[in-house]
C-alpha cells in the first residue's frame, strides 16, 4: 500500500485544517460576491423574467461537471499507469464533486424547466444524457463504497471510471439521435451582452468552488487512508505488519 507518503502527526494536520477553512471561506465569499453582482446587474429577461438568474448556477455547474469528470478520467488513467494511491484518491474526490455538480445541474434545470417549458422533465437529449452521466458516476461511487480492500478498490474504480468516461460521448450521441428539444445551450455567444460577463465570472467562481471541493475531499481521503494505516500498525503492535 502506498500510504507511506502520508505521515500523520497532529500539528501539521491541524495547520492544514485551518488553511482549508480559510480557503473555504474565501471561496464562499467569492461565489457570494459574483452571484450578488450578477443578480443585481442583470435586467429581467424579456421571456423568462428573473427566472433567467438560475442560469448563473445551472450553466456553470454543467460546464464544471465536465472538468470534474475529465479529472476522473485522467487520474484513473494515471493510476493504472503508475499505480500510486494519490491518483486514485484524486479520481474519487473528483467523481464525488462531479456527481454533486451533475445533481445540481439536473435539479436546477428542472426548477427552471417547470415555469419555462411547463414540465419538470422531458426526454430531451441533453437532459437524458446528463441523467445517464449522473447514474454512471453514482455507480462508480457505489462501487467504491462496496469494496473494502484499498488496492482492489483503486484498480476497479479506475477501470470503471475510464470506461464511464469513454461512454460519455456515445451516450450523448445515441440520446441525441433519439430525441432533441433542449434549446441550444447557453454560452457567451448566444447571450445578451448584459448577461455575458455575469455568466463568465460565475463560471470561474464555481470552477474555483469545484477545485476547492476536490482538494478538500482529496486531503480528507488522504488523512483517512493514513489513519487506516496507523490503526493497522497499532493493531499489529507497532511491528509494521505485513505491508512494512
Amino acid at each position: 500500500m502506498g500510504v507511506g507518503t502520508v505521515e500523520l502527526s497532529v500539528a501539521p494536520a491541524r495547520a492544514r485544517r485551518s488553511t482549508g477553512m480559510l480557503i473555504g471561506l474565501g471561496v464562499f465569499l467569492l461565489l457570494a460576491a459574483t452571484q450578488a453582482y450578477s443578480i443585481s446587474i442583470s435586467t429581467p429577461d424579456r421571456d423568462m423574467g428573473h427566472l433567467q438568474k438560475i442560469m448563473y448556477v445551472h450553466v456553470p455547474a454543467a460546464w464544471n461537471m465536465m472538468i470534474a469528470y475529465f479529472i476522473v478520467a485522467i487520474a484513473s488513467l494515471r493510476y493504472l499507469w503508475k499505480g500510486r494511491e494519490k491518483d486514485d484518491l484524486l479520481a474519487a474526490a473528483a467523481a464525488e464533486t462531479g456527481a454533486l455538480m451533475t445533481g445540481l445541474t439536473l435539479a436546477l434545470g428542472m426548477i427552471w424547466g417547470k415555469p419555462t417549458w411547463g414540465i419538470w422533465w422531458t426526454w430531451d437529449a441533453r437532459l437524458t444524457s446528463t441523467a445517464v452521466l449522473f447514474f454512471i458516476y453514482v455507480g462508480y461511487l457505489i462501487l467504491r463504497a462496496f469494496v473494502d480492500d484499498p488496492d482492489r478498490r483503486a484498480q476497479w474504480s479506475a477501470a470503471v471510471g475510464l470506461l464511464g468516461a469513454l461512454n460519455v460521448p456515445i451516450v450523448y450521441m445515441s440520446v441525441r439521435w433519439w430525441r432533441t428539444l433542449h434549446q441550444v445551450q447557453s454560452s457567451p455567444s448566444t447571450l445578451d451582452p448584459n448577461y455575458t460577463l455575469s455568466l463568465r465570472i460565475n463560471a470561474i467562481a464555481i470552477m474555483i468552488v469545484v477545485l476547492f471541493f476536490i482538494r478538500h475531499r482529496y486531503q480528507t481521503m488522504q488523512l483517512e487512508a493514513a489513519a487506516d494505516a496507523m490503526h493497522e500498525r497499532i493493531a499489529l503492535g507497532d511491528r509494521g505488519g505485513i505491508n512494512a
Partner: protein
Amino acid sequence: MTWRDEWRRVQAIVWKDLTTERRSKAGINAVVFMGVLILLLFGFALGPDTEALRAAAAGALWLAILFSGVLAFNRSYQLELDGGALESLLLYPGSRWAIYVGKLIANLVFVLIVEAIVIPVALVLYQVALPPGWPALIGVTVLGTVGFVTLGTFYAAMSSRSRAREVLLPLLLFPMLIPVLLSAVEASTSLLGGDPMLEAGAWVRLLGAFDIIFLVASLLAFEYVIEV
C-alpha cells in the same frame, strides 16, 4: 506465448463453462424462466390491448433480455469462486485476456440460447408478425447481445467479488448500456415496421461502434480488474 496458445486457452475456458452449464442446466432454466416471466409481467402492466403491446414489443423484449441476462454474469464467476478455482485459473501461464475472452464467448452463447427461446415467446405473446426483412432483426439482436455481454462479463469480474454483488452489477451495468438499449430497441422497432424511414442502418452502425470500442477497452482493462 503465441496467438495459437492463447486461442487454445480461450477454447478450454469456453468448453469448461459451457460443459458446467450443460450438465447442471440450473442457470439456463432460471434465466429463461425469468425472461418469460418479465415478458408476462409487461403484458399485464401494459394491458390486454394488442395494439399497445405490439408497439411496445421491442422495448419489453429488450428489457426482459437485460433483466434476465444480468443474472447469468455473476454466476459465471460465482461458480469459480465457490470452488476456489479463480486463483488456479489465474495461476496458469498465459494472458489474462484469454480468461476474459473465454468467459465472454461462453456468456455470449448462453445469452443467445436464452434469446432463442425468449424471442419466439415474445413474438407469440405480443402477437408480432415477422416482417419480410427478419434476418436483419437477428443481426440487430446479435450486435446488441455482444455489447451487453461484453460489458456484463467485464463488470461481473468485479461485482461477483464484492459485497452486495446482486445489487452492484445492475447499478454499474445498466447506465452504461443505455446506448445499446436505445439503438437495439429503435432498430428493432423500425425493422418490425418495415423500416419505412430507413433509419435502422444508423442505429446498427452505432451498435457496431459501441461493441468494438468496449470490446477493446474491456480487453485492455481486464488485466487490472482480475489481478487484485
